[in-house]
């Protein structure tokens, strides 16, 4: 028995030692140059490890890039690999990309440890700016010109940054996103919602939408899959209300009437009615975004209220075995007020960039130019991953491989404006709500309305007051200029 125990102990020690050495090595490496760690995304199915820091000679300038969008991981990794092999090698630059969904957390730690990347992917919260991780482009010598060039190409969407002041552009609008209503063509045809040719006729206004939900709800299927657990679901009523369903162009935002500007009352009320009358899959508050998507793709629900990026999801991940299409809801009288879209930001410099010498600054600049350049943009567009803000990308892209739904949406996005949306979503983090940000507040009030715990007037006043208070706070602290909210 003693011998066996001894052997067991030795074995365990060996196991521990190997674990210790592999663990130790990684922790140290983590603080230095992370290589391509695997992302959590199922879509990026085991790509090649990419840039290993093999034999980095002294004159290779290593640029660390933290990228946090799982849906674009695969393409990004490919592009960076190619860059490192070709242009990077020529100019002595190497991009080390870290893919992660916890960018904010990593940045926080990075500020404490003093180990930050040079470039970080956008879509972060204000905390990164407050925490001192990200700097505005203008603080770099080449920054202002770069920003001006980009805005010239993409047109003035009014806001190109997270700070609405004049010079402090922290990030640039790269792609647009917007609302989309997905519908099951076969189910529509079976239920008799067809046009003259017998083709499925999707709803075009919110009241038609309500009717469709009612018709499609029979004993076995439901009209709508509503992911109320997903924090962004409620945005439909306030931001991504619809393309052109708003009363007037809401650039002049008086925050006390925010919900009225976006016609939120009508839309929220319709959603609440759908919930209360059982036209949506039951238990809507416990349904998250992905389960709702699968309810649609499995034919349990006839429609799904989503975003433009769901097109990619339905073409690759939850692929339905019926014909489906995308549409959007507009104003009751058919007036087109122009489309309103949200944005994706792309890449920003961090405070580490200030410590580079002139030669390295030039190299950093070239990396930025590449990141915002045609090669990356066209590749992303062709993969159907973005609806580009820079029209040159969609012009130059080969659209033959894109699905019909993507093309349809891309066309609509070309003229979409992003300013109103961006202004409202900018305020999210400043909203004082105990369970989360302004986004959560909007969703929670929608849930409360659906369950009958609040009236529509309560909802309006709650949202308006919270956002007004947030904006006042921002103005007081000098973070924004109230004039930026006017046209």
């Amino acid at each position, binding site marked *: 028995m003693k011998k066996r125990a001894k052997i067991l102990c030795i074995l365990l020690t060996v196991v521990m030692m190997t674990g210790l050495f592999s663990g130790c090595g990684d922790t140290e490496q983590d603080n230095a140059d992370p290589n391509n760690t695997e992302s959590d995304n*199922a879509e990026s199915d085991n790509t090649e490890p990419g840039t290993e820091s093999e034999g980095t000679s002294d004159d290779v300038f290593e640029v660390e890039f933290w990228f946090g969008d799982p849906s674009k991981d695969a393409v990004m990794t490919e592009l960076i690999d190619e860059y490192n092999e070709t242009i990077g090698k020529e100019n002595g630059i190497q991009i080390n990309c870290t893919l992660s969904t916890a960018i904010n*957390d990593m940045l926080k730690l990075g500020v404490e440890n003093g180990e930050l990347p040079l470039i970080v992917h956008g879509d972060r919260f204000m905390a990164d700016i407050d925490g001192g991780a990200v700097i505005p482009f203008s603080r770099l010598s080449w920054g202002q010109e770069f920003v001006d060039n980009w805005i010239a190409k993409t047109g003035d969407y009014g806001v190109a940054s997270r700070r609405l002041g004049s010079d402090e552009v922290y990030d640039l609008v790269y792609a647009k996103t917007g609302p989309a209503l997905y519908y099951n063509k076969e189910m529509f045809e079976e239920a008799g919602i067809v046009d003259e040719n017998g083709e499925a006729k999707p709803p075009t206004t919110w009241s038609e939408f309500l009717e469709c939900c009612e018709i499609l709800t029979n004993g076995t299927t439901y009209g709508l899959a509503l992911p109320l657990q997903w924090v962004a679901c409620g945005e439909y009523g306030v931001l991504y209300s619809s393309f052109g369903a708003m009363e007037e162009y809401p650039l002049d935002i008086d925050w006390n009437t925010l919900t009225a500007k976006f016609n939120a009352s009508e839309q929220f009320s319709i959603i609440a009615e759908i919930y209360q009358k059982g036209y949506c899959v039951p238990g809507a508050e416990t349904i998250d975004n992905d389960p709702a998507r699968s309810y649609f793709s499995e034919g349990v629900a006839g429609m799904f209220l989503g975003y433009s990026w769901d097109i990619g999801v339905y073409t690759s991940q*939850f692929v339905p075995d019926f014909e489906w299409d995308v549409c959007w809801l507009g104003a009751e009288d058919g007036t087109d007020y122009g489309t309103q879209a949200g944005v994706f930001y792309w890449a920003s410099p961090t405070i580490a960039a200030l410590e580079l010498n002139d030669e390295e600054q030039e190299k950093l600049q070239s990396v930025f130019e590449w990141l915002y350049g045609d090669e990356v943009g066209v590749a992303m567009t062709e993969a159907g991953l973005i609806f580009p803000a820079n029209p040159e990308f969609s012009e130059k892209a080969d659209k033959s491989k894109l699905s019909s739904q993507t093309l349809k949406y891309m066309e609509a996005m070309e003229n979409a404006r992003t300013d109103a949306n961006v202004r409202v979503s900018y305020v999210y983090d400043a909203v004082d709500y105990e369970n989360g940000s302004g986004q959560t507040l909007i969703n929670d009030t929608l849930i409360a309305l659906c369950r009958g715990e609040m009236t529509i007037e309560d909802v309006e006043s709650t949202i308006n007051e919270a956002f007004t208070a947030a904006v006042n706070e921002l103005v007081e602290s000098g973070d924004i200029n109230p004039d930026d909210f006017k046209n």
Partner: protein
Amino acid sequence: MSRGKKIHNLQIICIYVVLTLFVVCVLFPLLYAFASSFKTSGEILAGKNFWPTEWHPENYLEAWNEANFSQYTWNTLIYASATMVLSVLGNSVCGYVFARGEFPGKKIIYGMKTATMFLAFGSTTMYPTLQILSKLHLNKSLWGLILVAFCTGSMAFIFMVRAFILSLPREIDEAATIDGCSFMGIFFRITLPLIRPIIATIAVLSFKDAWNDYLFPMIVTFSNPEKRTLAVGLYSMQQTSVAADWSKMLPGTIISALPLIVVYIFLNKYFVESLAMGAVKG
């Protein structure tokens, strides 16, 4: 007498029936999830049958590959084993010292440790502990947690060891001392073999706790997906908007629960009987 016996037998049959029903109820969630893990996504969503109409074992392969479960299992194995060894070591030594050692301040230290067991800070001290770990540069790796487990020890285990050692006769120790054995020498050579059942219990329980532990490892490995353990991996699978369909989540659940169930089947006496003897009598 025979009537009494009949009633007695009837009683026993009733008890058996009730117990069996109960066991079925208790094990039901597991069985149901296991059966459903072989269904297709559509069937899970909309079908009403218990057993799958067709069996799809490839769900398991998909979960294994796409969600990185091989890496998680390896991490969890290392983490649980290391915690187990260090926990056994730390707690048994501690229990021995408290049982047999005579030194000034013993009562004070023992009292302090027992007192903190009652101070119910729970998970709220995680943040400062993380701060300490980050100063030691261990905040991104599971080794920090193992260090914490080793250094704090679990009062319940120490208690068990101490109580057990106190029940052992002192004569052997005294004989060994006369033969020239040092204090710690007695521990390693004599006491340790004698308390083998307790050691086994502590080993098994700390292994299980480390395997299933999820809150602290989640915080520590959040930005480091490679280092996650199974429990954390499963939770993050539920949270990320990637693999949120049941035909991958259910196999993942079964995969994460299965190893420990297997261990349990073989070593179950250590799980069960430890409690019957241990803390209650103390």
